[in-house]
């Protein structure tokens, strides 16, 4: 009955809102940051900040070492075979766009099919819709079951002309933890790659890209106790080498002539321009922090909170609440979307705010899924290492109050 990480590590959580202490339940949108991350970044700016690469002087060398150490940290965190497989981007969205532009332009042709699922975040939908527009390829959607799982029963036919599968590891709306193994097998049986949107899984459970067998994964630092402005694309070395560069500019070249340029070796080929240097330092600190907690402990903690929340919400609110996604809490991360009877999600969130409880309301950048669920929006509570049972008790009490207020 406690948090996994000391709440006191997270300065923002000691804040009050409307005279109430804060109950932050929106970590699926973005996580709060521990002191350790904030200090690492501040310290970088104060003691060894300079632009990276190419600088000969001490501070530039220290900054470069710190930046490259962050890359190694990420590689270790996701069990990459090589550090050079880690590309820093602005976030999950930028990573998926890198794939859809660069891999897409080299591989998609008229009539090809890109397979995604109905539970994808827009970051794994729109880039492919754009790639399809550019190339003449088409999207095919893996449907979902009524219990919020991927429905793989029709996979064979979906994969007919497929050139790639791109799916999320965890739904940011339903909380579903997808079993990716059959998709990885199906993709590789057909010699096509599979890309994984790990925005909601990397922060919450251990990732081993080699065991997973996917060809690329993407995630954002800001959902993982890290800063805004940086994310990761991991992809197999062979894939990164095979696809053309995406953004052009400094650092990604080995030579520029009047008649053309040569790209630098991987990963620099995908590192055009001044990278998010201090953000990389922050990401490394976040990874150290999570690793010290242990990613398995993080996953267990969230399962425990999810189970507690589903139990309490159902027992206290009964018929008045509808929870979307898997009914078995062990099949989901700490993300719970719901509908409160006769109260619009916006109003739910507004009233909860009055109680200091922060939940998200909206389509959660998953409009195709909203269409399937046949709702315009949902309210969503999500948990992380700094949450505990009493946060959920406050959520339940505030929901009860919100319902009474409107009905």
């Amino acid at each position, binding site marked *: 009955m406690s948090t996994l990480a000391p709440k006191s590590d997270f300065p923002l959580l000691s804040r009050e809102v409307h005279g109430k202490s804060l109950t932050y339940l929106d970590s699926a949108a973005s996580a709060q940051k521990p002191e350790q991350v904030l200090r690492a970044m501040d310290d970088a700016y104060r003691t060894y900040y300079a632009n990276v690469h190419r600088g000969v002087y001490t501070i530039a060398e220290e900054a470069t070492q710190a930046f490259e150490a962050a890359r190694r940290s990420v590689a270790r965190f996701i069990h990459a075979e090589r550090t050079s497989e880690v590309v820093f981007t602005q976030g999950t969205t930028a990573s998926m766009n890198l794939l859809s532009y660069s891999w897409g332009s080299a591989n998609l042709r008229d009539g090809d099919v890109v397979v995604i699922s109905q539970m994808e975040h827009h970051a794994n939908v729109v880039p492919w819709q754009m790639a399809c527009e550019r190339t003449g390829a088409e999207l095919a959607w893996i449907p979902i079951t009524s219990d919020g799982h991927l429905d793989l029963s029709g996979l064979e036919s979906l994969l007919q002309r497929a050139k790639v599968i791109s799916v999320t590891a965890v739904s940011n709306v339903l909380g579903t933890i997808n079993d990716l193994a059959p998709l990885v097998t199906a993709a590789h049986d057909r010699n096509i790659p599979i890309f994984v949107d790990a925005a909601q899984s990397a922060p919450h459970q251990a990732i081993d890209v080699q065991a997973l067998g996917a060809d690329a994964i993407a995630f954002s630092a800001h959902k993982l106790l890290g800063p805004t402005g940086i994310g990761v694309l991991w992809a197999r070395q062979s894939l990164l080498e095979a696809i053309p560069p995406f953004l052009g500019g400094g650092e990604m070249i080995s030579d520029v002539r009047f008649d053309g340029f040569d790209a630098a070796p991987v990963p620099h080929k995908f590192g055009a321009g001044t990278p998010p240097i201090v953000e990389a330092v922050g990401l490394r600190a976040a990874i150290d922090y999570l690793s010290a907690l242990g990613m398995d402990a993080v996953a267990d903690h969230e399962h425990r909170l999810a189970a507690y929340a589903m139990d309490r919400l159902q027992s206290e609110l009964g018929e008045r609440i509808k929870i979307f996604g898997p009914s078995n809490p062990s099949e989901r991360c700490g993300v719970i979307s719901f509908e409160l009877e006769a109260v*619009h999600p*916006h*109003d739910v969130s507004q009233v909860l705010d009055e109680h200091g409880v922060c939940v998200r309301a*909206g389509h959660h950048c998953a409009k195709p899924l909203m269409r399937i669920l046949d709702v315009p929006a949902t309210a969503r509570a999500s948990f992380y290492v700094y949450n505990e049972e009493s946060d959920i008790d406050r959520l339940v009490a505030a929901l009860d109050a919100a319902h009474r207020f409107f009905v």
Partner: protein
Amino acid sequence: MPGLEDLYREIILDHYRAPRNRGELASPPAVRAEGFNPLCGDEVVLYLDVEDGVVKDIKTAGRGCSISQASTSMLSAAVIGKPLDEVRQLTSAFKSMMSIHESNLENETETSQDEPGTVSSDGVRMGDLEALQGVVKFPVRIKCATLAWNTLTQGLDEAAN
């Protein structure tokens, strides 16, 4: 910090729970206008029966939060039977109450720095609509309140063609 009672006045909740003029009108002859707030999914549908420069009848549909739906209901009650020039005056009075700047260097949803509008500067009587005044203290929700009015403007423009 503004409290919930500023936002959810009793009369708003009343319009939300028991919306006026729900339904449809055959279109044509009525004009059907639809408004959509992409950020939150609020949806407003208005059926307008405009004859001889007067809003003879209005029906509403759509779904969304209490503010957008109450605002739709209150709008329908406020404009039914009114001549078009009065409706346009009311619309601009309402929008100015919501203090939305269309000024270039301000953001679309930005509220004014001045005191939130009371009764419209043009002296238009706002009646129940004044209850929506509290919304300006919650900038995120202003779009919910104005959606119906923007949809109305759109519908009336169409009716004029």
